[in-house]
């Protein structure tokens, strides 16, 4: 048992302001949720492109990332020992995400084991491995999709309740997948040629940039609470993370380096830099969008008024 914490004092301050920021999904334990979302997105994207390009190292990396993302999700939960109860996938996108991760980890294991170990009871051409392949793809699709919908179904935070957000998260997950493959390519030096992945990374990076701007444009024309979130993102308490992490490192650097690489030869170090910057951007888009979330005020504020809350 502890004394009244700074968290309590923070809550009391938050209850006094009109635009109360959400903190549960970004601060303290909440940061694990962002890490979990980030890793599961990159995992799904990496799995997708590794299957497409037949890169076994990428498949293994995707599986490891998904497993770590599961641990991050557990670390976020207030009662992690009850995680197995999350099966109510009828309406809840969180439950769907849990089902997706379960399918991905189960199917991925069935598919990967014979690829890497020759003494497994089933071969990579067996029914078991093929089933694992399709199960993992089903899980991958859910992992690509569910995060955006988790946010979009949060009615209390208008900045998130947009159909554009799931599309944005899918785009970033795919970009994270390409970035992870580029990173593997730079580290291992074998497998694919980056001439094939470079243009893909550039194209997805540009698409992501367009989607970010489109999303912000739409939300800045939405209701006052969403506009306030956009304000927090571009000029308020989230601005530094947004400009440095999301825009400069996450979008500008990979796009500029990618364009420079497209114009001439590109070194391994540059490939790694593009990949790392893209991955950092993938994390920060999730971090900044979550942090900019603001709850709907309980009632519209009349002119010349100030709100207080008892505690």
């Amino acid at each position, binding site marked *: *048992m*502890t*004394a*009244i*914490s700074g*968290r*309590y004092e923070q*809550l009391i301050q938050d*209850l006094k302001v009109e635009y*109360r920021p*959400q903190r*549960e*999904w970004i601060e*303290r*334990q*909440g940061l694990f949720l962002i890490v979990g979302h980030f890793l599961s997105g990159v995992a799904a994207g990496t799995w997708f492109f590794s299957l497409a390009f037949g890169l076994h190292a990428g498949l293994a990396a995707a599986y490891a990332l998904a497993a770590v993302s599961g641990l991050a999700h557990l670390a*976020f*939960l*207030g*009662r*992690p020992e*009850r*995680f197995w*109860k*999350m*099966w*109510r*996938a009828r*309406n*809840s*996108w*969180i*439950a769907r995400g*849990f089902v997706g991760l379960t399918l991905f980890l189960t199917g991925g294991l069935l598919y990967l084991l014979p690829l890497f170990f020759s003494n497994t009871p089933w071969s990579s051409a067996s029914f078991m491995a093929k089933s694992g392949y399709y199960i993992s793809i089903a899980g991958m699709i859910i992992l690509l999709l569910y995060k955006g919908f*988790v*946010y979009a*179904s*949060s*009615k*209390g*935070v208008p900045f*998130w309740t947009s159909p554009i957000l799931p599309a944005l998260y899918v785009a970033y997950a795919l970009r994270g997948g390409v970035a992870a493959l580029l990173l593997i390519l730079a580290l291992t030096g074998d497998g694919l040629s980056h001439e094939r992945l470079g243009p893909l990374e550039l194209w997805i990076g540009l698409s992501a940039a367009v989607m970010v701007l489109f999303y912000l444009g739409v939300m800045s024309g939405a209701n006052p609470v969403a506009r306030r979130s956009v304000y927090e993102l571009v000029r308020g308490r989230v601005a530094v993370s947004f400009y440095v992490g999301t825009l400069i490192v996450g979008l500008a650097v990979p796009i500029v380096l990618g364009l420079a690489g497209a114009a001439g030869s590109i070194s391994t170090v540059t490939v790694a830099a593009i990949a790392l910057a893209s991955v950092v951007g993938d994390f920060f888009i999730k971090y900044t969008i979550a942090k900019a*979330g603001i*709850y*709907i005020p*309980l*009632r519209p*504020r*009349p002119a*010349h*008024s*100030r*709100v*207080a*809350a*008892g*505690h």
Partner: protein
Amino acid sequence: MRWGMVIDLKRCIGCYGCQLSCKAEHGTPPGVFFARLLKQEEGHYPTVRQLFLPVLCFHCDDPPCVDVCPTEASFKWPEGVVDIDAEKCVGCRACMMACPYTQRYFYDEEQYYFPGNGATPYEKARSQRHQTGVVMKCNFCRDRVIAGKEPACVANCPAVARYFGDLDDPTSEVSRLIKERGGYTLHPELGTGPAVYYLPT
């Protein structure tokens, strides 16, 4: 039957009686408010007036918090009360993000009100009733109502500004007040169908 509450803003004197009686009834820890009072000042000197807005869970007819719960920990009783089964809650806090009225609180760790003095006997007794790592909220004092009493905030309002009853019964006091005094809900545009109505000042 659908339980509901009417709060007469004309009668509310902003005494915090509802908030304190709720705390006493449920023994909620620091940082958890099943009932709360918002105060708002309007206008410029010398024509300033203070507005009070007591708030609690609105027990929506179509509660977004129930839909997003991955474990069915958030659920609705037949009489319309939205409640949480603490044994099922995993502490994902999706319901907090879904609630448009921000009436849910996450109880992350045990805390007490008098730092340096340890937990009082009352707080020790109270902490046995609540689990950490789960979300908490108002349930219209369901146990009290089933026992034939009014919710604590209604029973202890010294200004008699709160009324509790059956919204589905057109002859109930709450239905009559809503009809005669023009009762309204907060954020009707969201389509959640709150069961807490306000009577205008």
